[in-house]
């Protein structure tokens, strides 16, 4: 089968399974949107009336099919928590925050870890290598939300480099928005930078041990030239795959960090929607996140083919 058809089919099958799985999980969860919405003042009649309005009185299979019909058209229904807003509207208003956060983190990861990895691999056992080794192990062990709290404490409260909670929406002042997002992005990036540096180092070392490097050296090329012309390009291959894989983790990290920095992104929306049993919004977010991760992996595959046509 053609590469592209195969990819597209697996894309659709994966999204469908993710949607079905989260749908089933939602059925197993105790409580529903009607009970969550009415709280302690609920009467049995009011709960029944609201359940009927949300369509909970219909059989599960019928609800999944009707949800699917809407979802195919990109219509994920109304939020049950926020009156008068569709799931898409809610997500659209949160998306810029999470995408900026994840995007900035990925750029930081690439900009910081690739040069460091290369530098350390060039001189194994050197100062840079030893320091980065220790730092990497430390930062890999610290979860991003702890890093986030530490950064808030040190840079927000002690050094006053930013105002904790001083989030500015992007449409109000894009410059201040980006400036505020730097610290959350660093919190997401740090553990991943640690991992990527280790990976990059291993990958470069593997290449350096290859016969073609020895040959190139024997021909009298400088280490610098070899590194740049051959080793870097070849060792990038596995690293790109790795960064592709990391996208999913960066998204997950962003969701966590949004709670720490009080950012109104997808993560807080997801957590709140689950707590309120806002099924339509949760389901939409799950599908969008799954689609993003799959899309990034698809792009990685394509880049791979460009870099190495043998694949």
């Amino acid at each position, binding site marked *: 089968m053609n590469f592209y058809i195969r990819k597209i089919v697996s894309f659709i099958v994966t999204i469908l399974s993710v949607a079905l799985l989260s749908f089933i999980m939602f059925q197993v*969860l*105790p*409580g*529903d949107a009607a*009970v*969550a*919405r*009415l*709280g*302690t*003042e*609920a*009467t*049995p009649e*009011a*709960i029944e*009336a*609201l359940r*009927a*309005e949300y369509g909970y009185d219909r059989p599960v299979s019928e609800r999944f099919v009707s949800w699917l019909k809407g979802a195919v058209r990109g219509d994920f229904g109304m939020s049950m*928590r*926020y*009156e*008068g*807003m569709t799931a898409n509207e*809610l997500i659209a*208003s*949160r998306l810029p925050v999470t995408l900026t956060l994840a995007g900035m983190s990925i750029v930081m990861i690439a900009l910081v870890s690739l040069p460091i990895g290369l530098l350390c691999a060039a001189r194994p056992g050197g100062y840079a290598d030893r320091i980065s080794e220790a730092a990497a192990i430390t930062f890999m062990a610290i979860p991003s939300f702890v890093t986030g709290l530490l950064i*808030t*404490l040190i840079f*927000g*409260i002690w050094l006053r480099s930013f*105002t*904790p*909670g*001083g989030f500015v*929406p992007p449409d109000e002042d894009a410059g201040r928005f980006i400036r505020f997002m730097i610290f959350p992005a660093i919190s997401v990036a740090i553990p991943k930078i640690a991992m990527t540096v280790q990976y990059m180092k291993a990958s470069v070392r593997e290449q350096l041990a290859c016969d073609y490097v020895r040959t190139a050296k024997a021909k009298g090329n400088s280490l610098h030239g070899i590194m740049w012309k051959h080793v870097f390009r070849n060792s990038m291959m596995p690293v790109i795959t790795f960064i592709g894989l990391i996208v999913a983790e960066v998204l997950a990290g962003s969701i966590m960090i*949004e*709670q*720490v*920095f*009080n950012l*109104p992104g997808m993560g*807080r*929306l997801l957590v*709140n929607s689950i*707590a*309120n*049993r806002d099924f339509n919004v949760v389901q939409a977010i799950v599908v969008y996140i799954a689609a993003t991760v799959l899309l990034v992996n698809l792009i990685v595959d394509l880049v791979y083919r460009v870099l190495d046509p043998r694949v």
Partner: protein
Amino acid sequence: MKKIIAIMMLLVMTTALCACKGGTDKDGNSSDSVYYGGKITVGITQDLDSLDPHKAVAAGTKEVLYNIFEGLIKVDKDGNFVPAVASSYEISDDGLKYTFELRSNVKFHNGKTVTPEDVIYSLKRAAGLSETPEADVSTVSAFNIISDITNDNGKVVVTLSSPNTELIGYFTSSIIPCDYTEQATKPIGTGPFKFVSYSPLTSIVLEKNADYYIEGCPYLDGVTFKICANTDSAFLELLGGSIDVFPYLTNDQAAQLEGKMNIVDGTMNLVQALFLNNAVAPFDNVKVRQAVCYAIDRQAIINVVAGGKGEIIGSNMFPSFSSYYDKSLVNAYPYDQAKAKELLAEAGLADGFTFTITVPSNYDFHVRTAQVVADQLAKVGITAKIELVEWSTWLSDVYVGRNYTSTIIGLDSQLAPSDVLRFYPSTSSKNFMNYSNAEFDEVFESAKSTTRSDAKIDNYKKLQQILTGDAAAAYLQSPAQLVAVSRDLDGYTFYPVYVQDIASIHYVVDPKTK
């Protein structure tokens, strides 16, 4: 009747004075200085569940909407009912008819004057009597005895099908315009602040209502309620200076803020208890319930979870209900391990037993209380397992489904004694404890309808005694509320109901120099 009206007039005048108090005392004391203007940010930890006051159910929403909406009456800080949209009210001697005279100068935020039609529409909607009922309007269940609401020459007359002299406390229910359909997105009320904007999970912004019927109120030009992810992130924002007022400090946080901010403490007006499912073994046995009561050291709980702030209670009533509150019940079950073991032995459980406390995990205060309770119960041989559940799960499994053994939670109330006790009548849909006592049901009905205040007080004390005697639950405390207020501000006021009254807050330094 004349006397009642005279009292009402007096109350009108006092509201006008006390709704925006302060500023009169000009002894040259600089700490008393009152400035008009300025804006503040108040941190809250729960997103609003609706902007429509008749659809909002969460206490965390109502306390915010309190600033936008008003009822016919309001509650002042001492627990008196004072007229708001109404200028005076009368309750007929038989407790069947409530007559409200409306103020003439009350305007909605859209500039329209409040008419009796608006009031009738609002009350009918809140009572579930509206011609086009909406499924998600949370009706005031106490209003189900209202048979008719009419306009009598500009006065609004509410007729009841059975006498209830306490219904007045529920007329704090918001008055909204009758011909307006965008209440859920652009709310309009009569309160001291008007709605500007709302962004889910971010903030709700309000500005001063310049047309408010009380001259010189409110002080501030605006307020932003900022929705924080949790108390920890709110605390960081307090330290960082982006929040001026935060009403839900934990005890530890308050200690850390000492000297940096003013810490004001009041009461949450909640009944915190270890609620026991009276229909499930072993708590279907009154001796076991009493044993649990004896085995709990309430003061130790208050010391551990709240640094000693909070008041021990002995029944389902909190001290703010001063005249109805039976203080003698506080010591009904003193901490007595020997007595607890004796009662357990009498119940055939000399070796103790194991049970589960289901606690909503979003309430750290209740979770920590559960840990202390479990420790204390272990000393008399009772093993308590703590199960943390999400709030939605708690609502559906514990509160609605009644599928639990015990739970720790705080019960809130309107300012009517029958409302505090609404969880106990055996036929009540809110009776999540499955409590059942025919005597209680009987006294409860007569307490609600009696018009004589001394008989009413006797009845309510009797009800508290019945609950304590039955050990319907192991009542713990009326928790303290710790509020952080910026040192630039003053006037934060506690009420016997759960509200954040921004109208009373003002700057003590010139907000322009900030």
